[in-house]
């Protein structure tokens, strides 16, 4: 082996060694080698949902990969409602809508407009004497020990003979979320939903734009407590609590 070849080989080995040190430390510290640059993340709204319908308002929720300012333009009104901070998990409440009316909308996300195919219709009756009733909880991510700091969460209620409208909100930086049940109505009849009783609550968590939603079902007596048990996104896909008939 001549000297030049030796030098090249030594150089190559040292180069690999030198590069491997910072790369190894980066992986050890972060748990992966995720070197994505946020500038390349997508601004496109995904998981777009309409929730919290009343006779005069709705809430629109969506997720973006990139943290951006979002805004909604209701086409029939031509009015723009916008967020005042950059985020991945978006929701905007649209008020002062007409009763029993169809609407379409576009989402402005970052620098682009994204017309939406889904439409919504406001409810055909007026809510009676709504009183604020807040329920709240916290979501833990798939590590089981850290809070889920972004994403969307929806909840709907069922009792023996009726189902509620879907409520939705974002998960905040502490993993927290809250819903106000004051305008909750029955989907079919439009009557105020009686929430101060024992109900089955189906909670769906959308952790990010590219992950499958995770569904958690609780039975909960909302006349006695406002706090929902902690929600963990690690899931065993259990369909039913074990049991056999007599």
């Amino acid at each position, binding site marked *: 082996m001549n000297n030049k070849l030796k*030098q090249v080989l030594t150089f190559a080995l040292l180069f690999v060694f030198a590069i491997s040190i910072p790369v190894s430390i980066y992986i050890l510290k972060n748990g992966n080698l995720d070197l994505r640059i946020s500038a390349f993340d997508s601004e496109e709204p995904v998981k777009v949902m309409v929730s919290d319908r009343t006779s005069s308002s709705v809430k629109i929720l969506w997720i973006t990969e990139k943290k951006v300012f979002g805004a909604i333009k209701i086409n029939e009104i031509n009015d723009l409602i916008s967020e005042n901070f950059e985020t991945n998990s978006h929701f905007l409440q649209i008020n002062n809508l007409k009763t029993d009316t169809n609407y379409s909308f576009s989402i402005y996300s970052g620098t682009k407009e994204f017309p939406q195919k889904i439409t919504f219709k406001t409810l055909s009756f007026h809510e009676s004497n709504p009183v604020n009733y807040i329920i709240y909880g916290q979501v833990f991510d*798939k590590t089981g*020990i850290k809070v889920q700091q972004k994403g969307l969460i929806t909840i709907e209620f069922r009792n023996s003979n009726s189902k509620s409208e879907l409520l939705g909100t974002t998960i905040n930086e502490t993993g927290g979320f809250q819903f106000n049940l004051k305008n909750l109505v029955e989907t079919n009849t439009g009557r105020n939903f009686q929430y101060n009783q024992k109900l*089955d609550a189906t909670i769906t968590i959308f952790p990010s734009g590219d992950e499958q939603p995770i569904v958690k079902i609780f*039975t909960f007596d909302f006349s006695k407590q406002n706090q929902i*048990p*902690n929600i*963990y996104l690690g899931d065993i896909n259990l*369909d039913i609590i074990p049991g056999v008939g*007599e």
Partner: protein
Amino acid sequence: MKNLFKVTISILLTFAISISVVFLTIPTKTILILANTFVPSENNINNIAQSTTSHEVTNVIVQKSFNDFSESSIDKFGFYLRIDKINLFKAIIPDVDPRNKEEYVKSWENGISHGKFTAKPGIIGLTYLFAHAVSNKSQAIEKNAWFSYADELVLNDKIIIYYKGVKYYYEITNIMAVSPKATAFYTGASMVPMLRLQYCGPPTGSLGSRTLVDALLIRQEPI
């Protein structure tokens, strides 16, 4: 040429060391290993799912009853449930999969099922135990329905668990009926050491709902 080579190597090493120092100063994001806690992480769940459990029972019972053991007859390092109020003293079968009906029904031949993916006593977490219950109590033994009398339990009743040489004393703090579909209650996660018993009902033995009996750890002592 040799000098140029040495200079290049020196620059490379200096670069590598300086980058490493920068990374070392950033607060670590490595996931903490919580040795004393049941962590309901996706990794933990996958590891538990891949583990195989033999469901062996150390003391074989010939004649079935609600009260198979006494404190003097148990294997000190085994896993047992004792509720004096309902005269229950049974072995607990660890890591029974709640998604596999055949597996959990078979486990009741030997005792009470400990739910797979939930905590064991002695760590921070929720220990989930489940068993069959029937309304016709005279058929309970024949049908391995060991929680048939659990409907007599009320708040502040005492429950004892024996596990790996330690005796754990729990006190009932909450009893609630939930929908069979309310699977979010099947968890090993809890902020404090906790026990959850689950059986069918009310009414006891019916499939329309499930009863959850939650108990908090009061104290523990070596056997």
